[in-house]
């Protein structure tokens, strides 16, 4: 096995992991606050990608700028989904919530299919062609920028949650919903904000990868499944877990592609998922519940 190849795999895995982390942070935030799994997470991300595609092709805005717009648009979508749909089943059995979100996922994915067709798409960015050599390995500039922006966004989100009053309110609602009601927190508003922020994460993540990863409507499903893997591995509801889990899964898949073959890379993360589900269902960084 060529060591350079391994190093290269490690590096590109790590860089791509930033996006995985951002995506998983959004999912884990939504779950942590309202115990609802957003089955439409990946499909929301695909809408972020198509939005950045539209902005690039129609308005000539580079995805590395338009991610802000995409995040805002997805924030609105998340707010809408929470307010119009999720809110009505917030006390229903988990199965009902899962089925509802599955319905939302089907609608979002296939609206994209109707709107944009089944062909794979990719957004062109001037950054896409640039590379930087670091000794024997090269760094794709687009991936590097994506990584940096994704990590900065994740950091900004943590600052928001840990350093602002609204963030503290969100954490309180996640920690103990009844307690939050008792102290007079408007939990419904917190839910809507959390769902919006969670969706904004994938809006930004979608735009950020739209020039790296070719996408088509069904990509949403596999992104959803990958996000689930990451948050389970990192620990449902744990921000740190989502961050580390994202990097871990990305590196594992990347190395899997090097050591096995590219079409088998997902096998690595699914196997990891099953092991975690069985032996440490709270995840690597999750709270242990007795």
């Amino acid at each position: 096995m060529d060591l350079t190849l391994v190093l290269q795999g490690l590096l590109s895995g790590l860089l791509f992991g930033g996006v995985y982390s951002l995506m998983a942070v959004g999912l884990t935030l939504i779950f942590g606050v309202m115990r609802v799994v957003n089955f439409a997470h990946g499909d929301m991300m695909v809408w972020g990608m198509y939005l950045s595609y539209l902005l690039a092709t129609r308005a000539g805005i580079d995805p590395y700028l338009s991610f802000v717009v995409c995040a805002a648009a997805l924030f609105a979508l998340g707010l809408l989904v929470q307010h119009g749909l999720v809110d009505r089943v917030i006390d229903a059995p988990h199965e009902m919530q899962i089925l509802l979100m599955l319905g939302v996922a089907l609608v979002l994915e296939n609206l994209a299919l109707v709107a944009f067709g089944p062909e794979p798409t990719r957004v062109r960015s001037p950054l896409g062609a640039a590379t930087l050599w670091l000794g024997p390995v090269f760094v794709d500039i687009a991936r590097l920028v994506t990584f940096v922006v994704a990590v900065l966004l994740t950091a900004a989100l943590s600052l928001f949650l840990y350093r602002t009053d609204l963030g503290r309110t969100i954490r309180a609602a996640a920690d103990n919903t009844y307690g939050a009601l008792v102290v007079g927190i408007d939990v419904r508003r917190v839910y809507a904000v959390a769902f919006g922020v969670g969706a904004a994460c994938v809006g930004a993540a979608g735009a950020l990868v739209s020039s790296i990863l070719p996408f088509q409507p069904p990509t949403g499903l596999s992104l959803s499944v990958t996000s689930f893997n990451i948050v389970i591995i990192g620990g449902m509801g744990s921000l740190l877990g989502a961050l580390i889990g994202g990097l871990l899964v990305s590196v594992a898949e990347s190395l899997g592609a090097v050591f096995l073959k590219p079409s088998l890379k997902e096998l690595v993360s699914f196997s990891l998922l099953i092991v975690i589900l069985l032996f440490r269902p709270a995840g690597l960084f999750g709270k242990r519940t007795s």
Partner: protein
Amino acid sequence: MRWAGVAALAVLLTLPAVLNSYAVTIFILIFFYGFLGQAWNIVGGYAGQLSAGHAAFVGVGGYTAAMLSIEAGLMPWVGMFVGAALAALLGAIIGYLGFRFGLRGFYFVLLTVAFAEICRIAVSNIDALGGPLGLYITFTGDPRQFQFRDGRVYYYIALALMLSATATAWAIERRRFGIYLAAIREDEAAAEALGVNALKYKMLAMVVSSFLTGLGGTFYAFYLFSLQPNTLFGIPLSVEIIIRPIVGGAGTLLGPILGSFILTPLAELSRLYLGQGGLHGAHLIAYGVLLIGVVLFLPEGAYPRLRRVLQRSRLAPVSGPSHPKGCPQERSRVAPVSGHLRSEPGSRPPLQKTLLVARGLSKRFGGLQAVAGLDLAVEHGEMLGLIGPNGAGKTTVFNLLSGFLTPDAGEVSFRDRALVGLPPHAICRLGLARTFQLVRPFPRMSVLENVRVGALARHPQALEARARARDVVERVGLGARAHVTAGTLTLAERKRLELGRALATEPTLLLLDEVMAGLNPTEIEPIIRLIRGIHASGVSILLIEHNMRAVMALSQRIVVLSFGEKIAEGTPADIANHPKVVEAYLGDEYVRAAPA
């Protein structure tokens, strides 16, 4: 109902004579997806375990039969059962891992998805199985090879598959198996307490479900003549399988079929008319909207609603699956021996003097020592009271004795059998039954059905259990409410139901956890009489109770817990005057300033 069923069957059998081939195709798909939905329904509906990876079983079944046919020349008629057996094996593995490790809700969904995806990726990467392109079956038109020139043959095969799955579901539904699955779905812990081996029955449901689904794989392969990993193992097929029973009514006999009759034509027509216009995802958008609509407005699914509408219209009285037709009182019951319950536990000779012995029982939760080295003994025929302030660890003791918690240290023996390590259902079957402080009736079952779950522990025949349950329901004073849904009972009635369910398991020792809490004095008196009667019939009783008057009146002996330790033990009179007890309840200051 029966006539409607016969008529519907007659129509379905004669339809191919008048339909064109496109219509026949649509019916084939309706039956096939109805069949898959029915197969899923056994584990996803009846047992309430949401599997989102059922495509894996279709794939395993189909690939096995196809490979056996292509490589070994084995007839698919045989191969389909080999494939189904392999699918059942996979189902058993997934089920065991999921259930044994206690994965619920989203976690179980993800486990099933992960297995299906692993199968898909693996098959795509195995060249011998055709890799990502899959397998193709050459058309010979040989019936022995599951191939027919006349599409109507597939019609009858698909119909037969759907009917056989429905017959299987019907057979399960009316037996102990089905009743237990419903109980597990409603409240697994309560079911365990009534002697239901939840792991075993969930496993059985998974195996039956995956076996049937595996049979479907062969049909799929030999009807379409091609197998691709992405379609046969993919999540979209799993969604197709799930959505019909959900829309039609999961956990009902006709829900999956109704769901297929609604959704399959919808999907095919939108595929035909919109797909040609380039709108590929249109039918899936419709699925999504329907799914959202069902969850928001029709969470039980279409069939239960339809049934109610039909019942109301009086034109076609349709009986629910678990309410046999006619008024139960009118039918001669199987061995309704009143007083049988009364005699049985008492007729058991005392095998030993002490019925239950716990030694050094300890349990810690994080920083809290809930129970610390407790010694406890219940004599045969005794009524023992367990009291203590809130948080003293009384309910934890019950959970330790009944197998819901495993002690950190200590041992329990009951009728000379060691209990530590046994699951709750096994302890119940040994004759130790319990009630829950926060009553947990199966809310959507009737009072009688609730009690029947308990009775099944001793009487595996559903009809006999029903007769026994009826006796118990009368005995606990709920006779007039026997057919009322448990979710609508008052608190006092729920407490009686809780008691009746435990009693129906015919215990030697009954653990009662605050059966009087929340009741007013007029409701408490009859409960005290009821408990006395149960005790008089030979059942030993250990009771936790806050109502001091009741404990003092009922108990022959009382054990007092405080902060997980036994601080006093004795007759009610001893306990009432014990300074430690007064202190634990009221605080030392109160003892000093003793009331005049």
